[in-house]
C-alpha cells in the first residue's frame, strides 16, 4: 500500500471573480502515475499548476483550501516556493528548452540550487539525467549544440531530463505529448513507465487511451469539479458515474 504523497482538500481556485475549481479533494499516492482527464476548460491543468504553485504567476488567480505535500501544507504564505519547485518538477505541453546548449539546459537547475561542488559532479548529473530521460545516446556527441536544434520529441525528453536533474520527488506533466507525433509519444509513454518506479507522476492528458496506458489512477474533472477518481482499470471498463462514462465513450465533449 503506497503512501499519500499529495493530499488535496477542498481546493478552490478563482480567476478574478470566476471560479475555476470547486472544492477539489484528492489523494495522490507516491510512486504511481495519476492521470487527470476531462474536457477542455474543466480545470485539470489549473489543479496541476496548484501543486507547484505555478498559478502564482497569474495575478488574478486566487487559490484557497489545502494541499499537503508529504504532510506539509503548501498553500500558505510561508511556503518556500523556490524549494517547493525543486522538489516538484514540471513538464509543459509545448516543449520549452532554454535557448542554451543541451548541457546547459540540464545543468541549470543543479547549478542554481547548489547541488554540485565540482565540474565533474555536474557532468555526472547531466549525463545521468539524460540517460534517465532516454536521451543520452542520441545526444552524447553533441552536448554543446543548442537545445532548440533537437526534434520535438527530443526536446520534450530534454525538458524531462532538466526536471529530473534537480532530483525532484514529484513530476507534473501538463499534456506532455499533445505536440508530438505518435512515435515520440510512445517513447515518452515508455519513459513514464520507467520513471514511475522512482517518482510520483501526475499527468494531465486529453487522451483517455493515453491515460489508460500509462496511469494506475485516473481522476475525471468536469466544469471545475472532480467527478470521479479511482483505479484506471475500473474507470475505463466500468466507471461509476454516468458523466465519466459519457466522456470517455465520446458521448459528450
Amino acid at each position, binding site marked *: 500500500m503506497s503512501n499519500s504523497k499529495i493530499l488535496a482538500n477542498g481546493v478552490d481556485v478563482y480567476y478574478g471573480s470566476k471560479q475555476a475549481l470547486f472544492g477539489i479533494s484528492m489523494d495522490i499516492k507516491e510512486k504511481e502515475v495519476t492521470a487527470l482527464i476531462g474536457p477542455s476548460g474543466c480545470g485539470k491543468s489549473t489543479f496541476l499548476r496548484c501543486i507547484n504553485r505555478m498559478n502564482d504567476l497569474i495575478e488574478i488567480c486566487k487559490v484557497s483550501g489545502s494541499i499537503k505535500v508529504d504532510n506539509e501544507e503548501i498553500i500558505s504564505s510561508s511556503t518556500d516556493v523556490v524549494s517547493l519547485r525543486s522538489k516538484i518538477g514540471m513538464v509543459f505541453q509545448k516543449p520549452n528548452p532554454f535557448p542554451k546548449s543541451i548541457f546547459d539546459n540540464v545543468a541549470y537547475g543543479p547549478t542554481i540550487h547548489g547541488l554540485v561542488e565540482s565540474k565533474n559532479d555536474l557532468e555526472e548529473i547531466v549525463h545521468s539525467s539524460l540517460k534517465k530521460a532516454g536521451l543520452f545516446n542520441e545526444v552524447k556527441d553533441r552536448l554543446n549544440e543548442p537545445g532548440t536544434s533537437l526534434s520535438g520529441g527530443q526536446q520534450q525528453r530534454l525538458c524531462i531530463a532538466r526536471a529530473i536533474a534537480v532530483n525532484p520527488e514529484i513530476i507534473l506533466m501538463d499534456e506532455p505529448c499533445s505536440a508530438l507525433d505518435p512515435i515520440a509519444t510512445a517513447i515518452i509513454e515508455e519513459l513514464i513507465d520507467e520513471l514511475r518506479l522512482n517518482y510520483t507522476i501526475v499527468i494531465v492528458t486529453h487522451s*483517455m*487511451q493515453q491515460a*489508460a496506458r500509462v496511469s494506475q489512477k485516473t481522476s475525471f474533472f468536469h466544469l471545475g469539479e472532480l467527478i470521479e477518481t479511482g483505479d484506471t482499470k475500473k*474507470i*475505463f*471498463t*466500468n*466507471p461509476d458515474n454516468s458523466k*465519466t*462514462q459519457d466522456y*470517455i*465513450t*465520446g*458521448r*459528450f*465533449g
Partner: protein
Amino acid sequence: MEQDKHIVKSYDEEIKDINSKILEMGTLVENQLKDSLNALKNQDTELAEKVILNDDLIDDAYNKLDQSLVEILGKRQPMATDLRTIFSAIKMNKDLERLGDHATNIAKRAALTELVLPEKPTRDIIRMGELVHKMIDHVIKAFLNFSDTEAKKVWLADRQIDEEYLGILRQLLTYMMEDPKRIASCTNLLYMVKDLERIGDYVQNIAEDIYYAVSGEPLIDTNPDPTWEAILPIKK
C-alpha cells in the same frame, strides 16, 4: 441496446450495424435448430438437406460480423460500456457460429432415415430441443433489451437442459444395454442429444456475455457441474 448518442454519428451507425448482424445470426441459428428438430420429427430428408446447405449462410454471416468487429475495435478504441459490448459481441459471434454447427449436425443425423429410432427417446429429444429453442429465443430477447436480468434467467435455465440431457443419456444407455440391435440408432440419438446439450452451453455462454456487457460483472457459476456429478459414481 442503448449504445447510441455518440457525438460521432457514424459510430452509432456502426454499432447499430453490429447489433443487426448479431440479430440476423441469432435468427438464422434459431431457425436452423427448429428446422433440424422438424426434420427429425417428420423424418424429412429434404428439410434436413436445406439445413445442411444453410450452414454456409451462417459461416458467411460470421465472417462479415467478425470483420466489422475488428474494424470497430481498431477504429474507435472503445471504452467502458462500448468496450464491453464489442468484446461480448466478438464472443457471441463465435458462440453463435458454433451453435449453428451443432444445429446442422442434428440435421445431418436426422437425415439418416434408414435408422429406425426408438420412439420415447426421440420424443424426449424433440421436447428437449424445444426447450433449447426457447432458450435461444429468450437470449435473443435479452440481447435486444440489453437486460442483465433476462440474461441471468437464461443462464440459470441451462441447469434444466443439463438435467434433461442426463435423463435422456441414461435412457439411451438402458435401451442399448437391453437390445444390442438398437445400438446404431441409439448412438445416433446420443450424438444428437449431445449436440443439444452443447447448444445449451453455448446459449449459456451468450447469456454470460450479455450480462457482462450490461453490468460489467462476470457471471460465475458456483454450482457443481451436473455432468461431472453424474460420472463421479461410475469413476469410483
